[in-house]
Structure formats: structure tokens, C-alpha cells
């Protein structure tokens, strides 16, 4: 078994194990840490495929952005809150149905897609990604940035409204 294969299995175990651990941990803060493990596993898989730009993006956005924001939200609560929350049955059933539906859809997508196999990523991916974003996928790129802008303006507006209501 090659080094690459061993690394692949370790990284996949990290990714999947982190995901499973999120499901079974009661404390929210711990599950953020497990999420981090899982995200690092994905970054490692990207590196293994030679897509180091995507790996760095993964770390920068998910570790530096998303998890920090998650933790920031959690810090506004105490460490013992969110434990043994009383769940009602309806909530559990609806969330279960939703998760199963999403899982089925994802699995169907995975099965239907024609995955390229055996290809090696280009030695320099950053330039290629940039070129594609500004030519072939420029529409999606612009839509995404407009979406983010709308979110920014909306949050600023809500804050303004809340502040003027208070005073």
C-alpha cells in the first residue's frame, strides 16, 4: 500500500469521524472542534489531490471564518447552556425526515455524477481558477458577490433599524 493510500484513509477517517462525532456530542463547543477536525480532513484531501489552493481556501474560509463566527455566537452563551436541552418529539421527527431526505438527494447526486478518475491536477491551480472565474463562470461569480453585498447591506439596515427603535 502506497503512502498516498495510507494518507487518503487517514484523512477520510478524520473527515468522516469528525462528522460522526459532531452528531454524537452533546456539548455544542465540542462539536465545533469536531467540525474543525472534519474540515481539516477535507483540506488534507484537497492537498492529496494536488489542489493546494483549494486546501488553503478551505482552511482560510472555514477555519478562519465560519468556525470563528460559530464560536463567537456560542461565546455569547454560557458553557453549560445548550446541554440536555428538552427536545420535543415533533422537532426530532421533522429534523430526522429532513436529514434523511437530504442524505438521499446527496447520495443520488453522487451516484449520477460522472466523476473524472485518474486525472492529476495541474501544478498551479490558483491561476486556472482565477481565469475560469473571470471568463467561463463570471456570471455565477458576480451573482455570488451580489448576494454577499445584499446580505451586508441587509445586516447594516437591520442594525440601524434596531438602534433607532431603541432610542
Amino acid at each position, binding site marked *: 500500500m502506497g503512502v498516498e493510500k495510507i494518507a487518503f484513509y487517514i484523512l477520510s477517517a478524520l473527515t468522516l469521524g469528525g462528522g460522526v462525532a459532531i452528531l454524537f456530542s452533546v456539548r455544542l463547543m465540542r462539536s465545533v472542534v469536531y467540525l474543525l477536525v472534519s474540515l481539516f480532513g477535507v483540506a488534507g484531501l484537497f492537498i492529496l489531490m494536488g489542489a493546494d489552493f483549494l486546501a*488553503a481556501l478551505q*482552511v*482560510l474560509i472555514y477555519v478562519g471564518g465560519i468556525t*470563528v463566527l460559530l464560536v*463567537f455566537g456560542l461565546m455569547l452563551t454560557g*458553557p453549560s447552556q445548550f446541554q440536555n436541552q428538552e427536545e420535543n418529539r415533533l422537532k426530532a421527527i421533522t429534523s430526522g425526515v429532513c436529514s434523511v431526505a437530504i442524505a438521499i438527494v446527496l447520495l443520488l447526486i453522487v451516484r449520477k455524477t460522472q466523476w473524472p478518475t485518474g486525472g492529476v491536477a495541474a501544478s*498551479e491551480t490558483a491561476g486556472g481558477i482565477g481565469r475560469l472565474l473571470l471568463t467561463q463562470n463570471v456570471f455565477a461569480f458576480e451573482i455570488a458577490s451580489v448576494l454577499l453585498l445584499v446580505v451586508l447591506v441587509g445586516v447594516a439596515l437591520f442594525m440601524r433599524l434596531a438602534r433607532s427603535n431603541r432610542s
Partner: protein
Amino acid sequence: MNELANFLPTVLSRSGLTVPSALIPVLAMFLCASIMAAFMGLSAAVLVWAERKLAGHFQCRLGPVYVGGKFGWLQSIADGIKLLLKEDIIPDQADRPLFRLAPYPVVIGVLLAFIAVPFSEKLMVTDFNIGVFFILAVLTVEVFGVILAGWASNNKWALLGAMRAAVQMVSYEIPMGLAILPVVVMAQSLSLKTIVAAQSGGALHWFVFQPPFFMAVSFLIFFIAGLASLKRAPFDLPEAESELTAGFHTEYSGMRFSFFFMAEYAGMLLVSAVASALYLGGWHGILPGQESVWWFLAKTGFLIFVMIWIRWTLPRLRIDQIVYVGWKVLTPFVLACVVGQSLWATLR
């Protein structure tokens, strides 16, 4: 690192050891990692001593004098031994596993970033083609450790410090990342080796001195944002000792505390090294044709001196001032620099 991997078999065969060839790259990785870790630890010790000494002189006193005979040069070694021997205290109410885990991301983030730093043309662990971006990315891991430490301590000061760290990081990561862009536009590459190589030929070819000086402004912004990301004065709110005792590492002692301490000093070295590679010509000397690792270390050392100088001169900012500076001053200026530099590059 690849050179090391090529070089290792001859060394090993001469010393009479037999290692399977599949393990050679792994061995080279371990060697590089341990060399970097040792370098990080040693430089942190030297920098702690330098900071003590300089702080003393800035405040018209002598700083450490006795330990090690002259100049107190063994002071940080003595401190290190003291920290290693201290009891590792974990508070009863702390979240134990997270409390234990928190120092590691902090150290690993900084250590990982060092592998992309070009000390000289040959002396670097590996030349990523996304070098600068990689450094920015792994440095965010450090902040996560800080926040984790503050949260897991279950202490109100630690929590406040960690929240301030999070706010500060979110505000300053953007100007820091954008400040790199004018250089990337100029050098047409994200690889630190290529960026430094593009600045050869004397001080006038360094990126700070390039007209129309967009890169000089972005150098200032990078340096300020770097100070903020290192949590050094005047941005040391996460550990503001006069109000939060020690901020996010209030509850840490001994070895675990020294991890945070070491990461801060190694981070100083890292930010200075990256700034001197990006803007100050890296390993290139003042006159054309001068190339050596000593130039790189001299520039880095000078930037570290400036950091210490700022720390012992300026008072601490308030958190709203910090957020104000980050979003309303640095971000617009750095955006203007990026747009200006891109226009300049296309028009020329």
C-alpha cells in the same frame, strides 16, 4: 525539502544506516519540521530577551543584567526552565479536553506558516506556488486556538479576551489579506520565492520604493494589521493585563502558558519575515548583486525592533477604536491601493 530528500540517502549510506527508500521523504519531512520547531523555539528565546532588554532601555532602566554574567543573556533560558518546571494547573470548572487542546493549534498555526518563509534562495522548506496565501490561511488556525483557550477556561476575563481576539481577527484579516494583493499584482505570482526574486537589483527595486507608492501604503497597512493579528500593543486588548489580568490565557500556567508565549514571539518573527519578503526585497541587499540570508535576517530583525519600539511607546487602544481603524480606515485605504495598483499595472 526536496533537496534534503535527495541529499539524505548519501548521508545515511555513509553513516551505515539502511532506511527503506519509501521512508526517505517522510524522514526529510520530520527533519524539516524539527529544524523549524527548534528555530522557532530558539528565536522566541532570543526575542524575549531582546524585548526585555529594549523595554528596559526605553523606560530608562537596564532590563535583565545578572543572569549569565553580562547583559542577562541567559534570562530567557532561565525563564524557560522555570516555565517547564511549573505545575500545570487546570481549573476545576474548565472544559478539560478543550483546555488541554487549545495551546496546540496556536503553536501549530505559526509553525506551519514558517514552512513557506523564504530565508534565502536555497534556504526554505518548500516553495509553494500559493506561498503568501498559505501563510494567511494557516495563521487563522492560531486564532481558533486563542478563542478555544478563552472559552474553555470558563473564566470571565478569559472569555472577554477571547471575544476581543475574535473581533480583532475578523476586522484585521481582511486588510491584511488585501494588502498582499498589490504585491501579487506586481510580481504576478503568489509564490514568495518568485515575489522576492522579482525585487532583485538593489534597494530601488524593492516593492516599497516602487512608484506610485501604492505598495508602500499597503506595506504600512500589512504591518499594522500584522501587529493586530499578533495581539501586540497597541492592539493587545485580548490580553490587556490592566483590565483582564491576562486575557485569554489567564488560567494557563507552566508549559501550556509558554506555548502561547512562544507562539506570540514566533508570530512576530513570522510577520516581520513575510513583510520583508513581500515589500523589502527579502534576501536582496541594498546595493545590486548583494544576496544573502543575513540581509533577510537583518530586515526581519529591524521590523521586530520596530514592533518592540511601538509596544513600549504607544498606549493601548479601546476595542471600538480598534474596530473603527480596521473597518473604516485600513480597509478603504487598502482597497484603494489594490485598485490603484491594478490600474497602474494595466496602463503601463
